[in-house]
């Protein structure tokens, strides 16, 4: 019974982290029709900024905020400089459809290699801001520590902030309009380009938060080559696909589902099967429900 509860708790924690990444991918996909594979690189870069901030001021919370700001700036910069140029220049030919994807992948490689060049490929460590020793309930130690509480609550706060932004503010309305139909939004006076850049910025901040929270939740160490960030990207993508790629709520639900499934595989079967399970899940979703678990409309079939 306690194993079961612990598994659920572990699943929710990792699901919370995946959901931040999935949200980042969905936001960019909705605003630009690009799945931003550089998001892992952006998260890595922002986490390094956070790490530098911790070294300087010794505060995880300040570092989290700074790294999210850095992530937002990086995202906005990439959209404003690279993506806008790309869309202006590459509008025809067989490569037009895939050029943005290729460019984001190149960016991922560039960020990783560049970080390796400037900060070195050795591991650096972010210590958890609060204890990672599980709470004890009736003599049993739960797999839920203050750190995991912090992770889950930070994610929830960010998600609430995002949903308020999207549902209640004019800015959120512009974001939704620009994603829904750029042409009509432009006619209605929305500055679609700027709004798009803003979407990239929010996505960059969410990705940075995912990176900052993931690192102490794992073994705390990371490097430009670390697999954790690539896996974060892949799991975020799988979660977003489960949710249908279009919807933020779908992304969160997909991430929770993925986190829970992976936690159960990890506890009850074998840790080495985690990736294969996630991959099989992706293939199954694509085969059976390519429109995602909550997408009711026709999927983006060929």
């Amino acid at each position, binding site marked *: 019974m306690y194993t079961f509860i612990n598994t659920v708790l572990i699943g929710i924690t990792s699901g919370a982290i995946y959901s931040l990444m999935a949200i980042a991918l969905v936001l960019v996909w909705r605003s630009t029709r690009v799945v931003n594979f550089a998001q892992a690189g952006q998260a890595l870069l922002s986490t390094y900024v956070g790490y530098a901030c911790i070294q300087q001021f010794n505060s995880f919370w300040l570092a989290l905020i700074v790294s999210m700001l850095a992530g937002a700036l990086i995202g906005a910069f990439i959209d404003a400089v690279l993506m806008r140029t790309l869309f202006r220049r590459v509008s025809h030919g067989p490569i037009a459809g895939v*050029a943005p994807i*290729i460019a984001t992948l*190149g960016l991922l*490689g560039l960020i990783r290699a560049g970080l390796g060049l400037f900060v070195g490929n050795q591991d650096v460590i972010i210590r958890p801001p609060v204890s990672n020793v599980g709470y004890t309930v009736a003599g049993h130690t739960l797999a839920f520590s203050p750190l995991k509480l912090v992770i889950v609550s930070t994610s929830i706060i960010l998600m609430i902030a995002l949903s308020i932004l999207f549902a209640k503010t004019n800015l959120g309305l512009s974001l939704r309009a620009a994603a829904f139909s750029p042409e009509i939004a432009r006619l209605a006076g929305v500055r679609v380009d700027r709004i798009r850049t803003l979407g990239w910025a929010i996505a960059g901040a969410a990705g940075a938060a995912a990176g900052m929270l993931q690192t102490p939740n794992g073994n705390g160490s990371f490097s430009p080559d670390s697999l954790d960030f690539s896996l974060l990207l*892949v799991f975020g993508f799988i979660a977003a696909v489960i949710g249908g790629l279009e919807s933020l709520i779908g992304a969160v639900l997909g991430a929770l589902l993925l986190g829970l499934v992976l936690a159960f595989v990890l506890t009850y079967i074998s840790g080495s099967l985690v*990736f294969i399970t996630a991959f099989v899940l992706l293939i199954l979703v694509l085969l059976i429900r390519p429109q995602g678990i909550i997408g009711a409309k026709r999927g983006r079939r060929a």
Partner: protein
Amino acid sequence: MHKIKSTNATRLLFFVAIGVFFFLLSNRVDELRVYQGATLAMYVVAISSLILLTGYSGQVSLGHGALMAIGGYAAALSHEHFGAPIWICFGIGVLAAGAAGAILGTAAARLSGPYLAGTTLALAVGLPSIANQFTILGGEQGLLFDVGFPPESLGPDFTQYKWYFWIAGLSALISIWWLQNLLRSRYGRTWRAIRGNEVAAELCGIHIGRSKTLAFTVSSGLAGLAGALLAMTISTVSPSAFPLALSFSLLTGAVLSGVSTLPGVMIGALTLVATPEIADVIANRIAASESVATNLPGILVSALLILVVLLVPNGPVEQWRASRIRKSANTHR
């Protein structure tokens, strides 16, 4: 200028001529260049598989390195466990990667959008954990893949690297020749029609999903061949031989070659072979530290990828051809 009519026979002759030229060349240059020639031929196969996918079905695979790994592992396994002759091992590599491509393609390639890109990227990221999962794959160490010494009938001076070069070069020539014919066949026309306009192609009775899946399957099979060739040149297959960076490099090679032109494939392959050397030269020239030497190739490849996509998105060859057509149109006016 008299133009030679391009028929099947002339094309075959052309390929034979290229083969003879490279055969003569391989007798003149030193061992390192011969080895690089084998690598070059491997990249030619790998890049042309990507070109087929991107240029002719409008999709992109971010993890072709993983499909190469499947081909390499399949070849090594069949060699180790069944002692199959080397060319059968290559065939098994092609079939295994093609089968994997068919499964992935059925799930992702028939959907438009970023699904194939994400799925292949996921496969490339997870490759080490998959390889470590099955003890038969040999974990981090991987498997040995030894194609054996060259046959004695070729004489005592015939070196191992030259043998690699022969195998790889012949595979590359045959696959490019086959690919050219395929692209001129009904399937090639179908893919070009889809690339041109999906809706129009569908109205002509083309099953879009099936054609795209087929394109990805063929592309995966070719990638499997390239993987087996790569395994041959380094004598092993292991997860570290097929890193994520390999998939990035292939994409760079494909974009440089111009995704819609097969003849440009040499440009991409040459660049990929030359990049580590150039990086080495730069690192030595500025007497750089180890972190520069390890990261410089990655930076060069990624920067090149971004720059080419931004500046000459359809590849330098295509760009040059387009500008020539424009120029001749102007002079005729």
